[in-house]
């Protein structure tokens, strides 16, 4: 798309249709993949994609500014992964009042009808799946759990964490959770956190991680202690590196999500809106799949062959 110039107002028939995509950050591979999916769909549908991102996970002000600037530049619709489910609502409302179609990707706003539509995975469910998997894999062994979380107050992290505990069947604050640490989803921080957890409770045998980089950091720390074989690591995301790590046996299981799919559907919806004037609405679940090469009875899962063909980064 080259002709961004000349399209003065939203809906002007002659110019190209502009679609905005606002992700939480620029740097998480999950969102990068989402952008790729959007770019591909934009090319197919003949619309122009512009992107923006918050400066960090939770940067609400940055996302608001991005919405405003996109509306000013005359976009037809905005796809957004809201950093904060509530805080973004007033800005979205202003955009919608100006006739812009706003679709939430990956996680909902609160309330969900703050946006026209939602294309997302259920993060809580993703957590539950690996929780159930872990419960089955532990086979009644008493668990000593470490959780490597995201950051204070970021909804995705909270939902996955809660889901994991629910799926595993323990309550928050249960004595079997011997160590919890924020990692920001970063591999080096994940490693440091795991090292310290092992120092604190050497008999940890189950590790939940917010995403696969944190999981790989934990794996490195466990390996240094020679514990990588007898500790179960479960994670969420389903990126290609992560799925490969499941295949390599570093991670036992991961809940795979599909960011490209969300973005593709989102761009299509905006393109449709531009053509037909009908707005997408409601919740479309883009699905989550448990990936593991060591399936457990009673828990549905697919193998890494499936995982690697459907992974996103």
């Amino acid at each position, binding site marked *: 798309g080259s002709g961004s110039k000349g399209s003065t107002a939203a809906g002007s028939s002659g110019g190209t249709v*502009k679609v905005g995509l606002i992700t939480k950050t620029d740097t998480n591979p999950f969102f990068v993949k989402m952008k790729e999916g959007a770019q591909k769909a934009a090319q197919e549908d003949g619309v122009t994609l512009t992107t923006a991102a918050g400066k960090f996970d939770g*940067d609400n002000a940055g996302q608001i500014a991005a919405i405003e600037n996109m509306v000013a530049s*005359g976009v037809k619709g905005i796809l957004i992964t809201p950093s904060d489910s*509530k805080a973004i609502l007033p800005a979205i409302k202003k955009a919608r009042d100006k006739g812009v179609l706003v679709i939430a990707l990956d996680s909902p706003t609160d309330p969900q009808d703050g946006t026209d539509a939602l294309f997302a995975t259920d993060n809580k469910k993703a957590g539950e799946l690996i929780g159930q998997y872990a419960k089955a894999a532990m086979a009644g062994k008493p668990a000593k759990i470490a959780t490597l979380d995201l950051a204070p107050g970021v909804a995705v992290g909270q939902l996955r964490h809660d889901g994991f505990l629910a799926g595993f069947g323990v309550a928050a604050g249960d004595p079997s959770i011997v160590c919890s640490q924020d990692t920001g989803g970063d591999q080096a921080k994940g490693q440091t956190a795991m090292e310290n957890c092992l120092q604190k409770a050497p008999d940890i045998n189950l590790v939940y991680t917010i995403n696969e980089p944190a999981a790989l950091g934990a794996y490195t720390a466990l390996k240094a202690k020679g514990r990588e074989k007898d500790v179960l690591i479960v994670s969420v995301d389903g990126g290609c590196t992560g799925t490969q790590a499941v295949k390599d046996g570093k991670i036992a299981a991961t809940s795979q999500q599909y960011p490209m799919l969300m973005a593709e559907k989102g761009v299509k919806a905006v393109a449709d809106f531009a053509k037909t004037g009908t707005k997408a609405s409601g919740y479309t679940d883009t699905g989550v799949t448990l990936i593991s090469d060591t399936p457990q009875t009673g828990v549905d899962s697919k193998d890494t062959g499936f995982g690697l063909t459907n992974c996103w980064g």
Partner: protein
Amino acid sequence: MTTSTAPYADLTGPTLARRIMTAPTAGPLAALVLACAFFSLATDQFLSGGNFSLIIQQVMVVGTLAIGQTLIILTAGIDLSCGAVMAFGSIMIAKMAAEGTVPPLVAIALGLAVCAGFGLVNGLLVKLIPLPPFIVTLGMLNVAFALTHIYSKEQTVADLPSQLTFLGNTFPLGGTDVTYGSLVALALFAVFAHLLSSTSWGRHVYALGNSSEAARLNGVRIGRLTIGLYALAGVVYGIAALLLVSRTGVGDPQAGQTDNLDSITAVVLGGTSLFGGRGSVLGSLIGALIVGVFRNGLQLMGVASIYQTLITGVLVILAVTVDQISRKRTR
């Protein structure tokens, strides 16, 4: 002996033209104008009242923080806690008002008071022990950040009473919608520009930043001046908190995490020296606007976000280069 009795050429002060040319804000202003000119040519949507109103709204929170930051930096200090203090203030105001614990205006007053309290503690530690401002405010950053999350229980606070969001409302001004909050921020800049340039207090702040020892020997009470400055900066962060709440319509515990660096950037882009004693709040306003214009303009041009980061990096360096060159020329 003729030289000594001859009237000084500049007894009446510099001429207006010279004043504008040599004003320390001339360089940043030139950079801002250049940036605006560029984006006006590059995109159709940039040059409009609505867009400018938007930019001002977008920078008003960081800009207001930059006022407090300027005060601290003028004393050769630095404040890493400003964003975190603002976040705590905003969540406090929002939560108390939304839960109806106290009337909204009382909530605002309490929020300002708490922010002032944080500033006061910063000031006391910096001056009385004394500790380096960098470490004190870094520690306070962690404390305020943690308190924000503990107090808010990680919950965003919505459904705020209208007194809290009033400043986010707009009124038409020459065909453009302007928020009341933008006016408050601009008024605040005017007040502090006046205080710093035209009152005794302002002189003392600059003298303190130049050399705290010289200021002390000249009878400036540097202890209470410094502590007062940190507390006052806290009040300004409280006002920023209110502006933030009114702009976003919610109390958000995640707010302000990069605002310390952003506000320092605005201050330094505005020509204020990190070594204290030289600079102005108007420079900081211009500095904040420069960054805002870059972000807005690049977005309007449809530059992909990672390239926006790249280009912003280069542009920030270019902006101070313009400043530097314009200084050399007028010297």
